[in-house]
């Protein structure tokens, strides 16, 4: 399926108010700047450890998260910066965690693949492929047991679909009608592996049928479409009608991680072509008649400053006290 032709770009900003639309822009732009900035810092040797950029997938993170209540929860994967930011987590504390500093969300114990902000309902990443689905299913089970009206959203990669836990999560959520939404970011690759190699049917959403739950495909480069699909799924979940599987078709702009030998599995032209479809630019066009150019520019300037401040905060924070290395274990 050709992505460009498969979707009708929704030019209707889905009933969102101007201020919400500005918020959408702010979040997408923040994620982009964050990824650009921290990637640079990593290349400059300021950061260490694995680094998975979510650049190009901003529309999925933001489209989904703005459909949530602040107290709804999100689980994520190894590629989780965007999800954390979209869910409202603090930039300074995320940076500090990436930098391995005491002020990081996890006191430096987590790192880039383990951001958690319980305060913001970002209940964290599992870089064990498929893990995010289970954690969200469990969170939804907690909501179900306590008659809590919250909803859990699991971000997963297309690579998770081959895992047994994917199947088990969906089945369990379905039979128990749990308030959970599974969002598969189908960015075309699980590292070097293309979706076509991982399953005969390259579409993931139809898998939902086997579990008796709705499955929808959405253009993951269109934040408003993602929002719409998520809103529908979240409403359904909150009503007690159970889970939905959303497949958001998108594209991974960067290598799998920093240092990935991308050239071994995809042509530069393919990436360049894909990058011409920029979710942020698309959004700008879609809201051109609603949000004036200078509003966007003001947001950009503000975000630039925030990210600079966040990086400064991280850099200036002390490393964790070695004395805490044993705390919290057993």
């Amino acid at each position, binding site marked *: 399926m050709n992505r460009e032709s498969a979707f009708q770009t929704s030019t209707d900003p889905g009933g969102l108010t101007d201020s919400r639309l500005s918020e959408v822009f702010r979040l997408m732009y923040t994620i982009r700047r964050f990824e650009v900035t921290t990637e640079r810092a990593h290349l400059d040797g300021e950061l260490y450890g694995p680094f998975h950029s979510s650049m190009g997938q901003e529309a999925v993170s933001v489209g989904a998260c703005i459909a949530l209540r602040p107290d709804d929860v999100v689980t994520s994967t190894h590629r989780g910066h965007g999800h954390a930011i979209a869910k409202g987590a603090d930039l300074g504390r995320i940076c500090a965690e990436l930098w391995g500093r005491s002020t990081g969300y996890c006191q430096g114990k987590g790192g880039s693949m383990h951001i*958690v902000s319980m305060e913001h309902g970002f*209940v964290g990443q599992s870089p064990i492929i498929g*893990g995010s689905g*289970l954690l969200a299913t469990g*969170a939804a089970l907690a909501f179900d047991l306590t008659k809590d009206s919250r909803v859990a959203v699991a971000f997963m990669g297309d690579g998770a679909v081959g895992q047994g836990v994917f199947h*088990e999560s969906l089945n369990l959520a379905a039979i128990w009608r749990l308030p959970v939404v599974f969002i598969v970011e189908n960015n075309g690759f699980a590292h070097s592996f293309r979706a076509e190699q991982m399953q005969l049917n390259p579409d993931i959403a139809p898998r939902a049928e086997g579990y008796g739950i709705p499955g929808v495909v959405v253009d993951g480069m269109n934040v408003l479409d993602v929002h719409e699909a998520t809103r529908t799924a979240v409403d359904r979940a909150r009503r007690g009608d159970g889970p939905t599987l959303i497949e958001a078709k998108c594209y991974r702009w960067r290598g799998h991680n920093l240092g990935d030998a991308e050239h071994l599995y995809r042509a530069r032209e393919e990436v360049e072509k894909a990058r011409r479809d920029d979710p942020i630019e698309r959004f700008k066009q879609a809201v051109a008649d609603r949000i004036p150019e200078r509003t966007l520019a003001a947001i950009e300037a503000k975000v630039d400053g925030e990210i600079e401040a966040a990086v400064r905060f991280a850099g200036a924070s002390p490393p964790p006290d070695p004395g805490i290395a044993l705390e*919290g274990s057993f």
Partner: protein
Amino acid sequence: MREITFVEAVREAQAEALASDDRVFIMGQEIGEYGGVFRATEGLAERFGAHRVRDMPIAEQSMLGAGVGAAVMGMRPIVEVMFMDFIACGMDAIVSHAAKMRYMSGDQMRAPMVIRTQGGSGTHHGAQHSQTLESWFLHVPGLAVVVPSTPSDVIGLFRASIELDHPVLFVEHRALYRTTGTVADRVETIPLGRGVIRRYGDDVTVAAVGKSVRQALVAARELDEEGVSVEVIDLRTLVPMDVDLVLDSLSRTHRLVVAHEAVERGGWAGELISRAVAEGFDELDAPPLRAASLATPIPFARELEAEMICDERLIARRVRESLGMPEPWA
């Protein structure tokens, strides 16, 4: 005081937890109306509802993984793994998720849950349904390991387990279910990490947990007739492990035998011996010995099982060895 069976104690302990804390619920196969394949949950679904005593499809990964997700959102799941062998099917949820959530998140999340399971030889279930695998979990930081040997301990240890803010592996030996013991009208909570001397003796200390404690007591009675006075320590929990109690005993007996049904190679006796030697070397008059099963899968035929499984005869033999005594019928 009243006399109840071990399995009744397991049932009571869970009922008490369900009755006293709304956050507690149970998940497992056959644990609902059916009451558990070993009757360990009989009556609980009727009393607390199918909502809180939840029958599961056969899907150990999601059972344990969803348990973790629910726990981090504030619940206190009891997850029953029908046979300890099947823990291998959900190992990742325990090791990489449950045990690490608290630490990795800088203590933002906790995953209090009790993973109940049963195992062991004697019912001729064969190689894939008889393993004793608790030793693996000593090697998993973040997880407590509890192995009760009496009905009263089941209740006292279960209460401490469900109240702990860490995940707990709670291991029952199948052969104990029908054994009986007296329990007080109000059983005291037993703090994890506190062993107990089941029998005082002067010559050799035998340390064990679970069914092996009963076997050690049988061996001790037999050895008594040979003029050997055995002290039997029930560690009750393997993590934390009451090494001080063992050292204290060694300062009187100067000889140690560690007994477990788990395979000797790589089993937890190695941990206790390493610590006993490191911390009590000068007290030792003889090398600490292990009474444990031989390194084979568990065979079906009773003649073969008897050959490789640790029993009271092997414990007695090791005690004699430790004293340099000849075997009576050798």
